[in-house]
């Protein structure tokens, strides 16, 4: 045992613990709890029944009161452990509660009512995962619709982003023409025009084009991202121009050069942009909130925010839907985290 402790506390360089080591590990372990704790708590809570969610203090794991069907009663009754007047404890089912007195029956002898003070009974509880939090939204709410809308927006916008931005990047990296610098500057300048600044006129343009209350109105304004052009162009600049010249000698058309030569060689950069684009479009909120006002068109993010803003928030559904909304991004995080972190560290772009 002490060897394990010694192994775990061993420091590089064989020196003892310095105060900075203590700060480091406190910060890291604290960080682990603060960063993951809230999300884990959310996932845990999403399996609790509405009754368990309303409890305070809450339990860590989901518990529900055990129920039992008693002869002569239609509904299943809650089971309680009650202390009787003679001091013995028995397990009884509650029929009804009047004031501080609870009328209970022994499940084995349903005929006889026993009165117990509610202070002298505690519910018999068992662990149970409320999976209906996940299954019910699929039938009750338009949850499937929202999910589908989000998937449609994300996939379509990402595909268009890849095509449109790679074409522009191809033009800006492999051709000499007048106005190339102007075009490049124009694209970069749009980094300075965030949505929050132009949302009023953008809304009127989207409406004028008949795209209000349409998923295309969500998709189109987002697809020409300057970041995408920038990433792809930087990558295409590293592809030797000789390849393009050789293809022209072989009578390839410019379109074929783009499609057959440049795109396959740009695959790594396209993959990075695709990952970014999926995360961006999946998470988009303000613009869909403005463009979509019909319920059946909401994306997951808009639907969640609307339902969670209602007066009587149905937290058990909201929590489960939030978990579902998190899943794609968590998958990206688990499998592609390294890709993204090196991408950000390399370009400083998000």
């Amino acid at each position: 045992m002490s060897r394990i402790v010694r192994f775990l506390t061993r420091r590089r360089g064989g020196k003892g613990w310095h105060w900075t080591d203590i700060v480091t590990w406190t910060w890291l372990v604290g960080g682990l709890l603060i960063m993951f704790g809230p999300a884990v708590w959310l996932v845990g809570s999403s399996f609790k029944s509405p009754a368990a969610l309303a409890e305070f203090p809450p339990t860590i794991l989901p518990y529900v009161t055990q129920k039992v069907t008693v002869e002569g009663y239609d509904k299943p009754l809650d089971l309680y452990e009650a202390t009787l007047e003679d001091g013995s404890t028995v397990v009884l089912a509650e029929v009804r509660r009047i004031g501080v007195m609870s009328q209970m029956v022994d499940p084995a002898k349903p005929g006889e009512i026993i009165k117990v003070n509610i202070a002298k009974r505690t519910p018999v509880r068992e662990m149970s995962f409320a999976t209906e939090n996940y299954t019910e939204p699929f039938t009750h709410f338009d949850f499937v619709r929202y999910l589908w809308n989000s998937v449609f927006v994300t996939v379509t916008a990402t595909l268009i982003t890849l095509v449109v931005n790679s074409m522009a990047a191809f033009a800006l990296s492999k051709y000499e023409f007048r106005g190339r610098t102007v075009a490049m500057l124009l694209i970069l300048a749009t980094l300075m025009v965030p949505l929050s600044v132009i949302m009023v006129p953008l809304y009127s343009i989207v409406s004028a084009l008949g795209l209000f209350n349409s998923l295309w109105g969500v998709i189109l304004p987002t697809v020409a991202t300057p970041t995408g052009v920038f990433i792809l162009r930087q990558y295409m600049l590293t592809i030797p121009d000789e390849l393009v010249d050789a293809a022209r000698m072989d009578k390839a058309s410019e379109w074929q050069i783009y499609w057959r030569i440049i795109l396959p060689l740009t695959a790594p950069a396209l993959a990075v942009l695709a990952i970014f684009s999926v995360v961006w479009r999946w998470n988009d909120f303000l613009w869909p909130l403005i463009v979509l006002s019909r319920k059946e068109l909401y994306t997951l993010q808009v639907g969640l925010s609307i339902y969670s803003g209602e007066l009587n928030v149905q937290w058990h559904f909201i929590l489960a839907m939030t978990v579902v909304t998190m899943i794609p991004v968590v998958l990206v995080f688990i499998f592609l985290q390294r890709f993204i972190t090196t991408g950000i560290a390399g370009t400083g772009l998000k």
Partner: protein
Amino acid sequence: MRMDESGRSGLSQIAMMPIHFLMGVLDAPLRWLQRATGINGMAAFFLLPNMMIFGVFVLLPFFINFAYSMTGGTALFLPDRSFVGADQYARLFDCGSYIDPGSCAEDTFWTAVRNTGWFVVLQVTLMILVSLVTALILNRELMARSFWRAVFFFPVLLSPVVVGLIWKWILQRQGLLNFGLYSLGFDPHVWLNDRNWSFAATIGVSIWAHMGFYTLILLAGLQAIPKDLYEAAEMDGTRPARAFWRITLPLLMPNLLVVVVLVLIRAVQIFDEVYVLTGGGPGTSTLYLTQYIYETGFAAQLRNPGLAAAASILMGAVLVVLTLLQLGLGRSEKKGGRK
């Protein structure tokens, strides 16, 4: 084709067939176009879709925003709106005293300005401190560094709505925070019903959600500092604190400045997670500028697109200054690198 890959690439070839077909069909008219325009003319063709989308959805709105800010009424389309000159701006700036939002004609605007101001000052300071400390710690000799880096990066990918809901759930009456306090013997508190606490919550939550991103940039900067500088300092008997002030901080400064400006630009525009977490409340205690613009332009009973446009142009002016600052810093950083 190598044998071991043939199965997989066979499948992907079938999947790509419609796309290849489509591109092949496109080739004939495009060859014709190429004959008409010449090789360099095709550059315009490749640029066109992107430029059209830029033009329609970014440049055009950018310019007509100015026109909007000079019109009045509730009509949506510009031709239906009446020209009012600088009235909208005058209304925004019509104040008895700029320090007291209550004395202004458009008091919610000034409340939003004041809230955003405080938010930016506090959030940016704390964000830089927290990210810097985390980056410094991750830059030490650590077991499983990439794991720890991922830990702090995790919330960056979450959607703002999810972030808002996660914390709304924790800060609510029966939430985890109250549970913790209760277990320690303190009284529970309804955090988001309290003006000060909900303001603090918006700062804390936005730092939680984005610090990993800035930590990553700072960490990249720290790892670019040559290790032999520290070895030389150690040989000269320099204390670590002095090494930090004399080596780490000056060499990290370009990255740090870029991060400061990035955090600033994002902080000024804060909206999504706050809107879900507090909805701007209680009262107007967490009402920030973007939400003011959104509500004035779209959500309010009597919406006023002209006023929203004027406010958004004022915010845009601040952002342009900050972005130019960033570009300037980026340039001087490159020059510094060449020295």
